[in-house]
């Protein structure tokens, strides 16, 4: 985007709340049941049935509101949003219009500067309201029609609407990371975008930098990962900037993201303008929450990501960025803390988790949430061996793979395979002599001042000792020997 424009982005996130049953009936809310198995007269909209609010759904919604610094409404009511589409059997969705569960909060996001430092930015939260999810339509492979599965109809959804405070795809991405972290810490949702328990729509417009009025806004849907949200917004900003530059009119519309083509396209819209004709849901009574209840709920909130981030920086002496990365994923931060409780050096634990361990988990497509192959105690054990010099970092990289595959502890593997680091100076000096003799040219280069050439010789010694030598010691021995041969 050229420098003269700035983008204005607001996000609408729909998150399924983790309840046992649906929001207005007793059908199970779990994912993956047989089609239409979790349905009943209420969520199928059969005549004579009445919805009754799930107490837990409201409680979880209020917890999210509190964690986002929102004001919890003392009066809450539900409204009907009327539209005809077969994903809702009643021809309306029970949602909230003018009296949502909570409003006027904010979410802090951390943005990484070019220099690598983190800066906080506050994004306003307009509101968070409860509604029922819709059913699922299946088109593929269906002849002359579409199939409908109403298992999802009536799952409690919380729609979290941000202010148009985001200014770049990266800010939108970080907003989602931070929001997901809060939801996970609260334990209110699985936040699984692939299974649809977290969905995100983006409103994007661009305007002259610093200009007060907003440009025409376009809504983008159909992104199924945080990366896709990032890419779709970047694409849309570019498309709108080009339109402005060529004098093409930007139409207010809904566009869908096509992941394989990497572009957005106009969603074929129904002819009549949307008119949802909201009105108060007559089948549900209003709700009121006392300030005592709200305070009790506030006290029940767990430590949230921002507080944990501050604590990590102070308590463990790790960098802001490392603390941020660990804290953003609750399971990762839990694993890290478990390692330190087992006596691991925090800095080393942070490094090993973020590099080797995450690489292994990604490779095996496992999850940090459930890691029987490598309990924190085992990683702490490995780190102890590195710290006290028993094995080199290089050997440790092989050991961690073996630990993962065999579920054995680092001590066991090191003992079995005889991997203990060679710190025997006499032995190392012998090997160093052999290596220098075999590579006179390289030795000469080192002597003539080309210091980095020593790396090759260190590598040769490592090779001869099967990686068991202490690299720092080899370096010192080689340097001493070569320079004394002048």
């Amino acid at each position, binding site marked *: 985007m050229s420098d003269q424009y700035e983008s204005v982005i607001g996000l609408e996130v729909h998150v399924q709340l983790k309840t046992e049953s649906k929001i207005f009936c007793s*059908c*199970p809310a779990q994912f993956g049941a047989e089609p239409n198995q979790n349905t*009943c007269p209420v969520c199928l909209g059969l005549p004579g049935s009445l919805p009754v609010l799930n107490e837990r759904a409201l409680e979880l919604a209020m917890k999210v509101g509190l964690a986002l610094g929102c004001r919890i409404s003392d009066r809450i009511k539900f409204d009907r949003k009327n539209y005809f589409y077969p994903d809702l059997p009643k021809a309306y969705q029970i949602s909230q219009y003018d009296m949502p569960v909570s409003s006027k909060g904010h979410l802090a996001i951390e943005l990484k500067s070019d220099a690598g430092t983190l800066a906080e930015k506050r994004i306003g939260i307009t509101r968070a309201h409860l509604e029922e999810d819709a059913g699922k*339509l299946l088109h593929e492979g269906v002849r002359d029609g*579409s199939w409908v599965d109403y298992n999802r109809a009536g799952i409690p959804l919380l729609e979290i609407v941000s202010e148009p405070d985001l200014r770049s795809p990266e800010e939108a991405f970080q907003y989602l990371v931070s929001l997901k972290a809060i939801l996970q810490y609260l334990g209110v949702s699985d936040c699984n975008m692939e299974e649809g328990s977290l969905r995100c729509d983006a409103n994007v417009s661009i305007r002259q930098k610093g200009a007060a009025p907003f440009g025409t806004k376009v809504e983008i849907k159909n992104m199924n990962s945080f990366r896709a949200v990032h890419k779709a917004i970047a694409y849309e900003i570019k498309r709108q900037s080009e339109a402005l530059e060529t004098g093409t009119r930007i139409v207010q519309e809904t566009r869908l993201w096509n992941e394989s083509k990497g572009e957005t396209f106009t969603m074929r819209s129904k002819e009549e303008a949307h008119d949802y004709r909201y009105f108060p849901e007559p089948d*549900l009574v*209003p709700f009121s929450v006392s300030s005592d209840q709200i305070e009790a709920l506030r006290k029940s909130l767990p430590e949230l990501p921002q507080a944990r981030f501050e604590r990590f920086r102070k308590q463990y002496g790790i960098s802001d960025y490392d603390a941020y990365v660990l804290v953003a994923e609750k399971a990762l931060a839990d694993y890290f803390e478990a390692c330190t409780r087992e006596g691991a050096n925090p800095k080393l634990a942070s490094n090993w988790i973020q590099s080797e361990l995450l690489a292994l988990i990604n490779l095996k497509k496992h999850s940090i949430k459930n890691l029987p192959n490598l309990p924190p105690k085992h990683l702490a054990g490995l780190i102890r061996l590195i710290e006290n010099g028993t094995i080199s970092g290089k050997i440790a990289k092989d050991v961690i793979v073996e630990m993962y595959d065999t579920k054995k502890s680092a001590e066991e593997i090191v003992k079995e395979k005889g991997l203990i680091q060679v710190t025997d100076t006499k032995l190392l000096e012998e090997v160093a002599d052999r290596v220098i003799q075999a590579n006179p040219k390289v030795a000469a280069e080192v002597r003539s001042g080309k210091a980095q050439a020593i790396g090759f010789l260190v590598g040769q010694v490592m090779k001869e000792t099967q990686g068991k030598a202490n690299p720092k010691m080899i370096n010192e021995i080689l340097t001493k020997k070569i320079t004394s041969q002048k």
Partner: protein
Amino acid sequence: MLQKINIDQIAELARLNLKPAERDKLAKDLEGILAYVSQLQELSADKVPPTSHVLPIENVFRKDFAKLSDIREAVLKHAPKCEGKFFKVPKVIEGA
């Protein structure tokens, strides 16, 4: 002071195909209802909080307890169209 009812738009939103006679009658009825209700405009309601429900009941909850209703087969039998365990509707694809 009453705006005229746009009966065609209302019918379309409600997915009703009205015959001309029905259309005229309904438009007249609705206008009559609006005129009747508009008498309220004469009163000052500035200090009256909006009422969304007429009964003085609030906070009716159910516990979060899951139970299968097991009505799928019975309901599918009565659906206009079904295939396997799915309901079937005319093809609807938004955006394709």
